[in-house]
């Protein structure tokens, strides 16, 4: 029997491709619902993975052709990060009894959602489309993207500082490193768009 190929073979008709595998493994070693409360900042917060994915996959329609692919690549990768964060939150809360959630500061969440995940930030504020912009000016939009990556990097640092779960921190370090690489690529995109090659430079 042939194992299913992740990508279409010649002549195969494919309607939709999704690889049902996390970008990086998520392992949680301690039962700690309080960490879930902090992690939700990266789930439905202003600088979280959902805001990042929606920001880039929306801006890419009105950005110069040279950098559309970059926004598509990074925007879809943010959804892979979102899946990792969701997995972390789910694992940290799935067996927690109502009392344990209450003690972790998640009593209000339990009343509204039980253990279901919801797109809100660490303070319980629901997700909002106002967390990101699309100005239509390529430089303004890319500068926002760079800032968003640095803010997400900082958020991961603060969560690592608050967490003493070595396995969870390992996955969080991976996500922080990806923010650094994304920021680097957005900075390079700005360099591409402002390039003055073959032109006489008179300032």
């Amino acid at each position, binding site marked *: 029997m042939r194992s299913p190929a992740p990508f279409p073979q010649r002549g195969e008709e494919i309607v939709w491709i999704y690889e049902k595998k996390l970008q*990086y493994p998520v392992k949680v070693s301690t039962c700690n619902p309080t960490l879930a409360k902090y992690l939700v900042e990266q789930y439905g917060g202003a600088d979280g993975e959902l805001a990042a994915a929606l920001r880039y996959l929306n801006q890419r329609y009105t950005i110069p052709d040279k950098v559309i692919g970059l926004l598509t690549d990074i925007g879809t990768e943010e959804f892979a990060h979102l899946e990792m964060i969701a997995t972390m939150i789910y694992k940290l809360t799935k067996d927690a009894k109502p009392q344990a959630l209450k003690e972790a500061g998640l009593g209000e969440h339990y009343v509204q959602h039980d253990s279901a995940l919801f797109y809100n930030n660490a303070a319980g504020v629901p997700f909002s489309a106002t967390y990101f912009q699309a100005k239509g000016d390529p430089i303004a939009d890319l500068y926002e993207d760079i800032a968003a990556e640095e803010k997400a*990097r*900082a958020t*991961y*640092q603060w969560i*690592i*500082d608050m967490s003493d779960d070595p396995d969870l921190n390992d996955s969080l*370090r*991976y*996500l*922080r*490193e*990806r923010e*650094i*690489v994304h*920021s*680097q690529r957005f*900075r*390079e995109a700005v*360099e591409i768009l402002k390039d003055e090659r073959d032109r006489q430079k008179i300032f």
Partner: protein
Amino acid sequence: MDQQRERFTPMKSYVPFRGLFDPCPPIGEKYYSTPPNLYVGFQSPNLEQFTPQEALRKGTLWKVFYDYYDNPYKRGGDSGHG
């Protein structure tokens, strides 16, 4: 050049101003991260790479962009960073 490389650190710190009546004990040094992407500029060709297996674990293929992070306040606030 080598001296400059020695002085490079991805973590900076400063001692915040202390007022006469600050209620909390001083934090000592306050840290902030300055990862390599702030310095590299447009990536030049032929930089050193991790092996593919290492790259998948570390989150980057390029050694120059790798920046390990740990809580800088964990070891009594002094981890020898400049």
